[in-house]
């Protein structure tokens, strides 16, 4: 059967198809990237029950921040990439009596926290790559 010249595909038809494909791909990408909960690793700092700061680890200024609460001060430092784990945070020094925050060492994945009970400061990581094998909670 001979097709009518009007129905024969031309360059414009191709462009329309391409546009639809590109938009569909962009749409799918937007949905998928949102679904994984991805986003850069963020430190959420709470002092005495109030969120004091929410800061992207990649924007951590000069690699060090100071937080104070209840008369105590914590020096929080950025740890460079530790192999596959990526960057993290640790309390380099603190003048609190227990030093539990210093002893906690480096936290490097979402859900982990450094807690200083005397200073009433909690530093918690959110976002970043989701590791399905990582614990959701720790007891002990």
């Amino acid at each position, binding site marked *: 059967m001979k097709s009518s010249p009007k129905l024969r595909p031309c360059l*414009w*038809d191709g*462009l*329309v198809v391409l*546009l*639809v494909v590109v*938009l*569909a791909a*962009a*749409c799918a990408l*937007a*949905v998928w990237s949102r679904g994984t909960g991805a986003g850069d690793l963020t430190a959420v700092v*709470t002092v*005495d*029950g109030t969120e004091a700061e929410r800061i992207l680890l990649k924007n951590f200024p000069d690699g060090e921040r100071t937080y104070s609460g209840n008369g105590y001060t914590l020096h929080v430092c950025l740890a460079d990439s530790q192999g596959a784990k990526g960057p993290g945070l640790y309390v380099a020094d603190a003048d609190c009596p227990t030093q*539990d925050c210093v*002893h*906690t*060492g*480096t*936290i490097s994945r979402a859900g*982990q*926290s450094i*807690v200083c*009970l005397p200073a*009433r400061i*909690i530093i*918690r990581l*959110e976002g970043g790559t989701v590791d*399905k*094998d*990582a*614990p*959701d*909670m*720790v*007891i*002990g």
Partner: protein
Amino acid sequence: MKRFAAALLAALMTVGLCGCSWQTESPDEAREVIQVIAMDTVMIFTTYGEKSTHADYLSEDEVRRLESLLSRTDGESVICQLNSAGGLGIDVGEEVCGLMEAAEEYTLATEGAFDITIAPVVAAWGFTEKENRVPSQKELDELLTLVGPEHITLAGDAAALTPGTQIDLGGIAKGYASDRIAEILKENSIPRATISLGGNVLAWGDRPDGTPWRVGIQDPQDPNNANAFAGMLHLTDAFAVTSGGYQRFFEADGKTYHHIIDPATGYPADSGLTSVTVVADCDLDEVDGTPSVGTMCDALSTALFVMGEEKALDFWRSGKYDFDLVLVTEDSRVVVTDGIADEFEESKESGYSYEVVS
């Protein structure tokens, strides 16, 4: 012209579809995380669902209410008033009375390994004071005469203590708080949540991907390392509580003294265990806000730590209560009871040897 119209329509449809994708997010995916410092520990409430924010803040309010109700140091609290009543009976209210009855039940069931009247002995070691110290044997002997359930009298909503006896409900307060929070989650139709109250956790529902929640048991040999675990529990609708001597301790004259006091000796329990984790199912039908499974796990984790491996396993085998155990021993073994063995994952890098018992 038709082609341009078609292209425009396609673009609009795509944008529309994108919009739809944001709208189709399940209400169950909404998540709220809040962190609270209360009862001398850090608590993290992570709840999902339409009412997640509401449930989180109700939980915080509930924990704060219990903290002031049960505090041993706040002079306004019922417990403080009872402790300083000099033997007189006072009205402690239905709730505190119910908790004291539950505590008495666990004291009798564990033959005194868990005892809320141990409070003055714990204070003598300084664990609830500003400074730790090693009390003399004479001092401990005198204090131990005031320890035991026979020094508590309950009648209706009133309670009385033998003069000199003091109680501390700290050994079950967080467990009871988890029971109360379970009721809040149930009432607010929360589909899934993780509630962490220091050494007490509640794994409510499952993960958003349908797998069980993963709960790491801190390695007692490396207590401050955020990545060191003695094992991993895979839990759905369950309470888990860990007691360990490494959680609070002090050193004097080259010896380490931890905070879990054996009511039989007045000394820190020396039972060969470094941590005890008690796991029990959270049956949604039975969640009613009264002291139940969460409270039981809290009391038993302390009691079984005091008992030691052999007695703890005998107690588990007795079947008196429905729970499972993960015991970590001083000689680097991890003992798992067979009811939870399929939900337990060994930690390969820990250096522990693992055994399942039945």
